[in-house]
């Protein structure tokens, strides 16, 4: 099944060739630290694919994109170029294949796109060598850090992943300090 989907993308790619369909840029003024507003929306869409909301919070609810933005001027300053270029490449690939920005793709199209990227099978014009696979691995790893790591780094807002895993936070045996049903809490995510 997956192979067929990928074949579909390849055919699309072949059919559309390299027609450039970049829409007018509608950038808003970004309130992010490093990311542009468009980049933030793109990361939000990608990370929601990686950790989707279901009965429990997903990446968007956990403010995973905030982790990316914060760390890209912090510990991950060294990855700034990789992100700027990688996100641009994702947009270019998406436009080439689907004639749409990644954020405007259907959910299933986004999934297919990322599965194709994971195995390094996106059209190669935008990507050099192992680049698409390694950038996907980075997005994946940082998403998991953001969602499952401590809120003090910018993600896992409200300890949502710990709630999902049903582990107490803070770690005091016998005490569970999650917000109660009426929303009262003495804890806030940093």
């Amino acid at each position, binding site marked *: 099944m997956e192979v067929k989907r990928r074949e579909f993308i390849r055919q699309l790619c072949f059919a559309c060739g390299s027609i450039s369909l970049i829409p007018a840029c509608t950038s808003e003024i970004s309130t992010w630290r490093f990311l542009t507003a468009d980049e933030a929306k793109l990361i939000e869409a990608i990370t929601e*694919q*990686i*950790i*989707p909301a*279901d009965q*429990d919070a*997903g990446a968007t609810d956990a403010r995973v994109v905030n982790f990316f933005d914060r*760390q890209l001027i*912090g*510990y991950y300053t060294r990855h700034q170029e990789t992100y700027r270029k990688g996100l641009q490449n994702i947009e270019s690939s998406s436009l080439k294949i689907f004639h749409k920005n990644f954020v405007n793709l259907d959910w299933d199209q986004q*999934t297919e796109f*990322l599965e194709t990227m*994971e195995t390094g099978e996106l059209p190669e014009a935008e990507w050099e060598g192992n680049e698409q696979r390694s950038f996907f691995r980075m997005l*994946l*790893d940082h*998403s*998991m*850090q953001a969602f*499952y*790591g*401590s809120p*003090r*780094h910018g993600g896992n807002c409200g300890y949502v*992943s*710990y709630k*999902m*895993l*049903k*582990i*107490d936070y*803070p*770690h005091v*045996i016998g005490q569970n300090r999650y917000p109660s049903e009426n929303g009262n809490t003495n804890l806030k995510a940093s």
Partner: protein
Amino acid sequence: MKNKHVNAIVIGAGAGGGVVAKELAVSGLSVVLFERGDWVTYDAHNDDELMSQRTHPFENPFGPDNKRHRRVFVGQNGNERIVLPFEYPFNNNAACVGSGTVSYGAMAWRFMEKDFLMKTSYGHVEGSTLEDWPITYQDLEPYYEKAEWEIGVSGDHTGNPFQSVRNMPYPMPPFAYNRDGQILYDAAKRIGLHPFPIPMLRNSVRYNGRPACYRMRTCVGFACPVNAKCGTHNTVIPIALQSGNCELRTNCQVAEVMINEKGLATGIKYFDENDNGHIQTADIVIISCAAVETARLLLNSKSRLFPEGAGNNNDWVGRNLQGHAYTGASGIFEDEIYDDVGPGACWAVGDFNHDNEGIVGGGVLCNSFFTPPYAFTRLRPPGAKQWGLEHKEFQRKNYKRISSVRGPFQEIPNFDARVTVDPEVKDHWGIPVARLSGQRHEYDRIGCQFMSDRAEEILREAGAITTWQAVGGRGLSGDQHQSGTARMGNDPKTSVTDKYGRVHDIDNLFVADGSLHVTNGGFNPVLTIMALGFYIGEYIAKNWNGGSFTSK
């Protein structure tokens, strides 16, 4: 300002150095204990998984830092690159007061008699430097006991039928098993194994003025919030300082040991926290920087008599770098087996340490420490989805249903797994950095597979519905269990120090850390490093005659 001459310099405030500094200071010697890192506290990183000793995507929470330190790593394919301390191939231990003992899992293993007699027990292994130690288990037994009582170990001294003879029980009772521990313990018993509580350098009751452990899930990889974990930072180092004879100098990077024309160490050159260079002279110098940095320091200490580095006239310094391949299996259970009673690991079996048919050595198997949420994202059976709804569902469903059984396989030492100093790359202070090359002996793979098979059997017997193995590979091992690079031996041609840790031909230069290990046991090595610290410290103190050091 010129530093006052002292009796002894100890370089490295970890498991070995902390103990030696205390032994010398309480015996009346004036000591300066050097540490390249600083004190660390629980509050700096609390229970933050991304800032733990086991998972550190940003930087090393327990040092060393990325700005000033680096190494060169030569991969199995021969490609070499500069690696930063937080990257895996750096093979980091730690750099802080107490070193690895601040954040370790704290298993307190004695090696077994056969671990000191590997060549006698198994004969020559092709392509290896497998050898007997110049000391026996019996020689070290009293010092194991000292380590257990002075630093503090909880355990059942009658638990392991395979252990070598011991004189005293542990000072504290063992910890109770948690839920997954009990299930796996029962299974191990059913298949005829001999599980018992893991001896731990962790207070099970109030001891040494510090409280009992309250069993948080975050323990291994973190400092202890209540000081119940016993390291050198909260036991022997404070005693050394209280004696009035020991000064601790933190944030100091030692560059070289100075060796004079008579072949004696006269002191060290080091940089303080403001990068100012200093000299500290002493009657005796003890190096306790762990296998990689101890070898680097010896190799960087060049003199006319030792042009290739202190103690390296026979090219043995930095050789035989060992650690441990960790190997085992994981399993998913139908019911929740996780009860949040940390730190996870609580029982072990010694059935596979020796006398396994067709295997040289072996190792201890334990149920594993809890896997925190981010690390758990990668704990999957082969082929499982790495992301998306399916991945998330696995997290949610199985976080409390997975347990692992793992252990360290005793590494077969080889001459080409080694530390050298890089001819070009230098650190922040201009000191040539350590260069790591080589790989594990090919034999390791066989032993690891054997142990993983045994681990999987226990999990299946316990009722795991899905099991899979993680088998140790051949990559160079030199991280937290690093050892072997300044081997002790009776023959100066095939070792670096004598049986008291004294560097051959340099009468007042000692090594006291895992570098001395001829072989590294099928156990976590820290208690052995501490025991060697007591043994060497006592030897130096006994031979100290008040003004100069003379030894026979």
